[in-house]
């Protein structure tokens, strides 16, 4: 029971991070129908940007307040990652709209390889670890010599995730931008005819996706304290699994899928073996795609003939 509760706490934290990345996959898929293979690497780049900013803020500017430092890191990481994703869309995906159907996916794979190797070359292949900080925990209960604790970091992850999801939810449901996005999802040509700037809407979608990935990247860096150039691939695949599991194209689905994947992963590690942890993740991906391609909250998709 104690183990279960502890893993529940850990799983929700991890799941929040996956959910934030998964939203990026789902939004981009919704609007231009492509699997943005490079999104996991955008997340990894954002974690590196956060790392640089963190070092800048703490060692150069000497800001000691955790809250202020975190806020600055978050904002800077969101800004620069957005710029990166905006540029990626302009350079690698936009010219391919209307090309043959696998072209954007192949371009995205190329971009993913490029990004991870760029970071490897630019920042070195070694794992970067930040000094431990903010390590206080709150012990919730203890029994059988096992403490169930929730760390401050975890609370921060939950609060930041929840706050940003609220803002994000407001943007996509209540603003003109959100309406334009949904219109483009339904029918891009029609949306264009009705005076919606499709290019701009797609760009903004990529920017939002990147901003959320940057939040995830910052949280990842803070929570685990380490990041390496190779950290885009597996979290990316897991977040994509989350998006598919929740129902690709569905925003609540992405969050739900993220939480599920996070929970499955932590529970699996606790009760089975960590060796096959990634096998489990990949198997869930394959099984979902084969048997439940519309996901939990997605609509069944009748192929238009």
């Amino acid at each position, binding site marked *: 029971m104690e183990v279960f509760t502890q893993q529940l706490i850990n799983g929700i934290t991890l799941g929040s991070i996956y959910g934030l990345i998964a939203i990026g996959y789902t939004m981009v898929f919704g609007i231009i129908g492509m699997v943005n293979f490079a999104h996991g690497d955008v997340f990894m780049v954002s974690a590196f940007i956060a790392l640089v900013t963190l070092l800048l803020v703490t060692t150069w500017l000497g800001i000691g307040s955790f809250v202020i430092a975190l806020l600055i890191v978050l904002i800077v990481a969101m800004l620069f990652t957005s710029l990166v994703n905006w540029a990626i869309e302009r350079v690698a995906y936009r010219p391919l709209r209307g090309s043959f159907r696998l072209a954007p996916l192949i371009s995205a794979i190329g971009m993913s390889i490029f990004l991870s190797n760029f970071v490897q070359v630019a920042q070195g292949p070694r794992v970067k670890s930040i000094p431990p900080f903010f390590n206080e925990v709150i012990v919730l209960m203890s029994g059988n010599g096992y403490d169930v604790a929730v760390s401050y970091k975890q609370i921060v992850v939950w609060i930041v995730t929840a706050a940003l999801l609220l803002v994000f939810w407001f943007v996509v449901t209540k603003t003109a931008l959100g309406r334009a996005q949904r219109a483009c999802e339904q029918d891009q040509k029609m949306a264009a005819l009705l005076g919606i700037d499709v290019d701009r809407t797609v760009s903004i979608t990529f920017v939002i996706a990147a901003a959320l990935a940057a939040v995830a990247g910052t949280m990842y860096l803070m929570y685990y304290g380490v990041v390496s150039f190779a950290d885009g691939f597996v979290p990316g695949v897991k977040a994509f699994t989350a998006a598919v599991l929740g129902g690709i194209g569905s925003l609540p689905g992405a969050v739900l899928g993220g939480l599920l994947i996070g929970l499955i992963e932590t529970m699996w590690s606790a009760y089975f073996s960590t060796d096959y942890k990634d096998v489990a993740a990949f198997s869930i991906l394959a099984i979902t795609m084969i048997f439940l391609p519309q996901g939990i909250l997605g609509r069944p998709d009748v192929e238009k*003939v």
Partner: protein
Amino acid sequence: MSVTSYDAAAAGARPSGSARPSNLAPVLRVEHLSMRFGGLVAINDFSFAARRGDITALIGPNGAGKTTVFNCITGFYKPSEGRIALQFGDPGVWEELSALTERGTRSVTRGDGMLFLLERMPDYLVAHRARVARTFQNIRLFQGMTVLENLLVAQHNSLMWASGFTVLGALGLRSYARAERSAIDKARYWLDRTGLTDRADDPAGELPYGGQRRLEIARAMCTDPVLLCLDEPAAGLNPNESADLGRYLHKIRDEHATSILLIEHDMTVVMEISDYIVVLDHGQKIADGTPDEIRNDPRVIAAYLGVEEEEVAERAIGTQ
């Protein structure tokens, strides 16, 4: 767009096939067909029959559900409800229809007659076994392959058989070479028919639009269909090409054992070449009958032929 708000027109619709002489057995019977996409009712309790050897037209305004009917017939969509039966060979096999329906299998044979329940079959078997061929509203050619190759792909199943599922063909057996030659001969026949012989070795995507439409029909005919379903074959053609198309379809009907089911917006073409017309609106049948009957049916005029008046006016301006 509300689909269910049109029940008034449907209530007055004639029962299926009441206006037709019953001396000829139908090739296709669609009964109580319904198709829903989530909340949207695209087709609602739609029934009609197409007689063997006829050109049967399915008309109706945009969004009426015509293409959806085609997709149900050809197995691309699984209908929500209804029965779609297709028969060839000895018409006596129609008597097995209710037995077949109850048995839950796909088809039944009696003598040389075969009866299929298409809604139970996957799309490729509808084409392969029940021999229903189709074209698409937005032309679907193998654009990068040559015109000839398009017609050979259409004969895939017989060629696969002849190539011993690739094994014999890979060994370079004479019998396969012969089969391929006769496949090319059949392709040549249809190329001659459609006037595409000169372009046989060009990529299909490089044909002019009218040529692509004709090629798509030729490709469908290369499967030796019992029923040919054409989705707006005259769309995008000029009046001359449309007239040619009409003659071409007549020839197919007269010279081959192929019945034709046609979706078309061009009323001149429809009125001229169809033997029988079914009018669909908002997913429901509002009328069926011979071209003359349809022309004078007030319901059709109200629901649909208003479009034709505009079309006629456009024509008049165009020819000035």
